[in-house]
């Protein structure tokens, strides 16, 4: 399992409090978590327990109220907004429950999106896009618009977009939450393959025990704290 690899993500004493008017919502309180390189971690927990919140913190989409977050030795909680954006572009690929593809762009244009921030030439970008679409098995749908694709296909485009920059880790928030069992299984197999064959570190939020079974480790989030489980 992951023990022989280095630690990629180090979450230390993280608190996250949201403010809604005068009310304070303590979502995460003193949370600690380490994720090793090459792990496929499943994050489970009841609705509203703060899974998305934690994933956002690890992915540099939000900042903790206190505590520290380290990814490959970099303190992302101390970065400026601009630095964080750059850091995300290089290190993180996001996969969303509702795919979040831009409806006005074709599949290949959607996948190309993160590459527009790089210095790659048009030809290089095209090559990367095609590789990514091939990995998810959708090269034949490159010119299609999202609304002409099935949910499972859209999510595969979403995964292609997440891997096209070859990021350090993939963060997936309920990637199968909106799919039927069969399409969901295909997506999980794809993620598993990315983890096993390409060595991608993956953190996946899920409600589905079926999905967490594919992971190398599962942690449970409840009342702002994590409880460990034996590796699957």
């Amino acid at each position, binding site marked *: 399992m992951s023990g022989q690899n280095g630690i990629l993500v180090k979450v230390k004493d993280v608190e996250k409090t949201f403010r809604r008017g005068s009310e304070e919502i303590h979502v995460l309180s003193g949370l600690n978590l380490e994720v090793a390189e090459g792990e496929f971690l499943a994050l489970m927990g009841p609705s509203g327990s703060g899974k998305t919140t934690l994933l956002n913190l690890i992915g540099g*989409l*939000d900042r903790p109220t206190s505590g520290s977050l380290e990814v490959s030795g970099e303190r992302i909680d101390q970065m400026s907004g601009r630095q964080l954006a750059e850091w995300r572009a*290089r290190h993180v690929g996001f996969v969303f429950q509702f795919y*979040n593809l831009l409806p006005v*762009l074709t599949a290949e244009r959607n996948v190309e999106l*993160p590459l527009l921030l790089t210095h790659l030439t*048009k030809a290089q970008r095209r090559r990367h896009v095609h590789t990514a679409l091939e990995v998810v098995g959708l090269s034949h749908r490159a010119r299609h618009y999202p609304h002409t694709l099935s949910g499972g296909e859209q999510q595969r485009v979403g995964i292609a977009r997440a891997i096209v920059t070859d990021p350090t880790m993939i963060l997936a928030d309920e990637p199968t939450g909106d799919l039927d069992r069969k399409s969901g299984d295909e997506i999980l197999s794809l993620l598993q393959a990315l983890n096993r064959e390409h060595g991608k570190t993956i953190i996946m939020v899920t409600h589905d025990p079926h999905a967490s079974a594919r992971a190398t480790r599962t942690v449970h989030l409840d009342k702002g704290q994590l409880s460990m489980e034996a590796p699957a």
Partner: protein
Amino acid sequence: MKLLFLVWSNLKRRKLRTSLTLLSIFVAFLLFGLLCTIENAFTAGVTMAGADRLIVRHKVSLLVSLPMTYGPRMERIPGVVSATHSTWFNGIYQNEPKNFFPSIPVEPEPFLEMYPEYVLPADQKQAWLQTRTGAVIGRQLAERFGWKIGDRVPLTSPIWPRKEEGAWEFDIVGIYDAGKKSTDTSGFFFRYDYFDEARAYGQGEVGWYYVQVENPERADEVARAIDAEFANSPYETKTEPEGAFAQGFIQQVGNIGTILIAILSAVFFTILLVAGNTMAQAVRERTGELGVLKAVGFSDGLVLALVLAESCLLAALGGLTGLGAAWLVTVRGSPVPTMLPVFYLPNEDLLLGVGLVVVLGVVTGIVPAIQAMRLPVAVALRRNA
């Protein structure tokens, strides 16, 4: 540049809404171009006016004549280079009141010297000096009636009948062109000596004088000296710069400029609301997508730029085509050459239009753009779920 397709795709998202917004911007700028042209047409006399030219008329009215003998007396006043005269003839072609145009008897040589913006070939000028009944007409007038050199044109004047029966007869000996864009080429000029001799009454009288001064900065001083010279005579004078003379003429039509500015302000206010609403909606309905862009690494500044680029593109597509259409309409010439002989869209107004396009793009885009920039990415992404 590689992000331009993203901006473009977003505009295509709601084709109907984008088209309607584009159409209203197009119409607004078309209107802007046309109204500027019309305003310019009305004020052309003022811009055409030379700073070094004065107009001397009877103190009471333009319609009261002055004696011919005043010319040499004016030329003796220090600061005056030359003085020449004109008379309002009010010629009408074929007894048809709508066939009206400025027709004026002048003294050919001094007149052409004083108005270098009327460009007349040397041989035609010679012909004019040799032909007593000769007339020199503007290019636009020539085209309006299809008159050529050598044509004989009969005119009648409700003010100045001939001693003998019948219409006045003129031989077209020259056609002048505009030396400047603002030059009016709808004029009909003929010789004063022929006119004075043949008219039924009023011999030795002229309508008004043009006076050229040495130094435009001292024009006021010279004007006062001229009026002083003829004070307490039976024909007291009123001398003003040519520009002021034309201005007074325009003010009788009403303050065109103010009316046009009021119309254009209303139009632009409306267009600001239309385009502003389009942009605000465009950003609001796209919150989740903006979140995605930020998640994959687009910086806040870049998101701001993308939204601004979209509003500017919208303004530019509608606005520049509108200005272009206005320009196309105006290069075809005046639809009413009788009323507005000078009809073109001045470059300054075109530039002003382009400036307004930029202002429209920035003003309608800046608020949504700042909203999009400030939007926290985690919040934006939640909007989608």
